[in-house]
């Protein structure tokens, strides 16, 4: 009886030690990871050109960045200006801006306020480099203009919104139309927000595009005060 109890106590003791061991290990690993991230960011930032010169080392460096989650393309404006002009800084920032937009697309359909984009881009760039300003991001988006007009800034009221999905590749309109069809040829903005889970911006953008294309007619005469969009060939 006594032996059994002793065994029980010992078991509890072992478990506590084991848990302590595991949590201690986890803490050290997290510490090492953040240390690793810091030095890696530092190297990506200071030695970019040297790293590029040696393709084999470049591969190893890239692997480290990928594992640790360091953006190998984060540099400061000042570094480039001395050597190569601002070109590459804005091109890198362009990659980061597009990536931030792509990550959010499932949620916002490719529309994001510029201020929010700046916050997300800075988060991606890590802590080693200077934060970029709204002007920098705007400049980077302008530089992407060479790649077609699909990625652009829209002015909605007093706000500036980045549109990252060009109309030709946007399937929101298809969804709006099928919603209208199921209701007998018309739809209200609020219906779309509810049924499709779109943000108000996204709804307005889709409806406006369909108006511009001459697909929809506006009906403001309803007693609930909600504008209706009619699609004649669907009714």
């Amino acid at each position: 009886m006594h032996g059994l109890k002793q065994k029980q106590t010992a078991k509890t003791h072992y478990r506590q030690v084991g848990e302590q061991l595991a949590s201690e290990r986890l803490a050290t690993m997290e510490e090492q990871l953040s240390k690793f991230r810091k030095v890696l960011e530092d190297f990506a930032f200071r030695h970019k050109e040297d790293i590029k010169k040696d393709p084999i080392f470049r591969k190893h460096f890239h692997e480290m960045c990928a594992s640790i989650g360091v953006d190998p393309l984060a540099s400061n404006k000042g570094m480039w200006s001395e050597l190569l002009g601002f070109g590459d800084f804005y091109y890198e920032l362009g990659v980061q801006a597009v990536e931030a937009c792509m990550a959010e697309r499932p949620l916002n359909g490719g529309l994001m306020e510029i201020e929010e984009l700046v916050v997300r881009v800075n988060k991606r760039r890590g802590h080693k480099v200077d934060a970029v300003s709204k002007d920098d991001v705007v400049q980077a988006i302008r530089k992407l203009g060479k790649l077609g007009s699909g990625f652009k800034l829209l002015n909605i009221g007093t706000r500036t919104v980045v549109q990252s999905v060009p109309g030709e590749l946007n399937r929101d309109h298809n969804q709006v139309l099928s919603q209208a069809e199921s209701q007998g040829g018309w739809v209200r903005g609020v219906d779309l927000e509810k049924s499709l889970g779109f943000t108000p911006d996204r709804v307005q953008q889709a409806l406006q595009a369909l108006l511009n294309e001459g697909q929809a007619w506006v009906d403001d005469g309803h007693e609930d005060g909600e504008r209706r969009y009619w699609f004649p060939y669907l009714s």
Partner: protein
Amino acid sequence: MSNLVLEELVLSTSNRPRLLKSEIELCWIQRTDLEFGDSGGKEEKWKDGSIAVTSHRLLWLKPEGGTGSGGEGGEVSRNSSLPLSALKDYKGVNSFFKKTPRFFLKVWRSDSGKVASAAEAKAASSGKALLELDTLSLAFRGASGSYDTFEKNLKLALAREEWRKEQMTKEMTVGESYESVRGRGGGPTTQVGASAAGIGGIMRKQREDNLKADKSIDVAFKDLSALMDKAREMVGLSSKLKEALQENTRKADDTDKEDKGIEKFLLSLGITSPVTKSTAGSMFHQQLAQQLADFLTAPLKKSHGAIALVDVYCIFNRARGIELVSPEDLIEAANLFPRMGINMHLREFESGTLAIQSSEHSDEALYEKLQGMTRGPGGNIVGIGPDDVAAGLDIPFILAREYLFMAEGNQMLCRDDGPDGLRFYDNFFKEVQL
């Protein structure tokens, strides 16, 4: 004596060499001849190909269009590769008085001519196996810097011995302890049946390991050359850290989900050997186009056959890591697709949007589909609108509308602006002969 038989070099659908898993291209040199045998190229000669030094092999591409054959035998050259591990020795001759700089490679081969494997070559060079040595000569007839570029990169590849390291990675010392963390961390109670002294031992060992890993990070990141020396080790440590922590977060709740998403994004799309200006030289845009085409095959399928060029710029550059491609180079590469027989093309829409499309969406294929839609089941005439096209072809509405206008502009369809909105019909007039 039979000739040296090089290994076959397999090409991708865009005709880019398929590389080994972690192989990196170091340089490409055009206008190079391969000469087999010791007799100064009289036995067999493959002419005017491109040669690459990679971290693992030499690659030879026969000239485009031609066979690159030469010599009396009239043998036809093949796209080939030679593992650097089979190289015993090399000698370069670049004298002021000789017109063509050459490299003479001594290659381990079997009796039948097959190039030796890494293990065979190792055994042979230490006298443990009997292999034959053959000579392969490279003659550089292209740009004046070819010889120096080749020599520099061959030396680099031979010094790094990347092929050998792959076999060694399992013998890692740093980060070794994380394996055991994962083994035990999951169920703390199950493994702790040892004596108290054992536990003390484990704890001590763990702290020592941590200290060791800490120290090795410090040493490796002291400066750039230190990091270059320790690069392999650090890659191992970084991936082990990540694995161990991922295991842990999988159990814990998913905070900071978004940041994990980035990592995944970066990882899943990696291009190991990005085509660069310094490795590809004058073949840069051509090779870039091939790499881009190979890379886009999967994403294009996922996105219904069209991706905005801006998105391509982002994902392609992310996959390339530190080697950023400028928008100008990207456009130039994409413009080469049709000429290179790649089944993708760059399309500019009315609105100015640029996108890469797969060639199933070429104009001709498109018109055919649209005309097919203007015929009902019984062959009767039907009017189609953008909504029908969007649904029928499973494409975005605005794109459907643009396609209809394009087809109208090319006299394939004609419009009827009636009470049902804008409808399009097959244009019979195009077949009327006047």
